[in-house]
């Protein structure tokens, strides 16, 4: 299936995307992930100010059937949360790359970006699924 995988983003193996703007990283769920989940009906996100660690869970998304953890692409501090998702998580399905963003993290170290996938690698990963 043809999922949109923007070239300018970083990706985790667990299907989060990360958009880096200096030391601020916006995090979302990839089109592939939301398609696998089905209709998202519940999102649990951290509070602003909470610390997150690369590769660790920072929240949960649930579809009617399944519960999935969200994994932090980088370590740092949550500075903004997309609280509109808490009441209406449907934008995670409708527009996962824009309106469906999850949190913004002030990252501790740019070096961690080297642990993430770039678009060609991520495309390869989901094509094998």
């Amino acid at each position, binding site marked *: 299936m043809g999922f949109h995988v923007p070239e300018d983003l970083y990706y985790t193996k667990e299907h989060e995307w990360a958009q880096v703007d200096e030391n601020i990283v916006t995090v979302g769920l990839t089109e592939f992930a939301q398609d696998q989940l*089905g*209709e998202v*009906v*519940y999102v*649990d996100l951290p509070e602003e100010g909470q610390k997150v660690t690369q590769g660790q869970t920072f929240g*949960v998304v*649930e*579809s*009617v*059937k399944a*519960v999935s953890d969200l994994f932090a692409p980088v370590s740092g501090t949550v500075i903004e949360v997309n609280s509109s998702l*808490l009441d209406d998580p449907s934008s995670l399905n409708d527009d996962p790359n824009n309106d469906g963003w999850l949190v913004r993290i002030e990252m501790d170290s740019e070096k961690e970006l080297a642990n993430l996938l770039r678009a060609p690698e991520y495309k390869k990963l989901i094509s094998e699924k």
Partner: protein
Amino acid sequence: MTNTQKTPLYNDHVNLKARMVDFAGWLMPIQYEGLKEEHQYTRQHAGLFDVSHMGEIRVKGPKAVETLQWLTTNDVSTLENGQAHYSLLPNAQGGLVDDIFIYCLAKNEDYLVCVNASNTDKDFAWMTQNNRGADITNESSYWGQIAIQGPKALQLCDEVFAPIKVSEMPRNQIVKGTFEGHAIMIATTGYTGEKGCEVFIEAQGTSALWNRLLGSAQVTAKPIGLGARDTLRTEMKFSLYGHEIDDNSNPYEAGLGWVIKPKAKDFIAKDIIVKAKEEGLKRKLVGLKMLERGIPRQGYELKTAGGEKIGFITSGTHSPTLDEPIGIAYVESSFGAEGTPVFIDIRGKLVKAQVVKTPFVNKG
């Protein structure tokens, strides 16, 4: 998995672009266009479910009734020709081997027992071991099975199965017929809470029937996956083996006392099952609604405000009909009254819920 089985409709599901999953050793469609749409389509129109993975065990001969009376909790002697009922197969400890439907094809002579897919081999072995002289055969590979459910289902069935008037059959009836030369049995049963029927058909005719049902000009039926089948039955608080009931369940605690007839007859573990009820049931199966954000899921613990464990969730989901989370749970009997507040441990957080009346949705 190398031994995964396929139903006679496997190729049809793939052609319909279903998402296929391994379910109880069978490759089954979990969803086609989307669980929510499929759920709502069944509640409002007509849904087709491939339930060919379910097991069919035939019990025949002069000892058929005697054997079924001993094996099951409901009173088989009350079934007349063409009648069906829900029943239970108790084990020797008073737990449950399975929950089943029994169809009377010829009174005192010929009964069809429909069992859960994952339990077919276990049930057949148990029934054979405890046979009281009946002729018991496993016909599971012989039959395909399609459930047609929803408010428009019976109109579709009347059209496809004419001259049989399925819409005029009472609930829990079965009738024999043919479809394009294949033997069929149409039963007004189902597990969604909707009106409709379940059709047993010789396996090689299943695909032709499936496509005929999808090709009606009068009623647009849609294929529905196992995902929606589960949310539909959860809304009705219908028990599912492996969730609400298992080898350790007391059927009274599961709220299934209405299919236990201890005064009418003897059956396996009757004394144990009845004694547990007389001594007072320790727990109760209840419905839950959330008072705070969160979705209850199978296995989550129920606690008091103080954190003391008082039960666990057996099934939980976001109800597509109500557009809110619902759950089914065992709780200690003292917490089982409607309106009682309880807390669900969701990933370490105690989230407030309330015991509510069920079914969650009134249908059919």
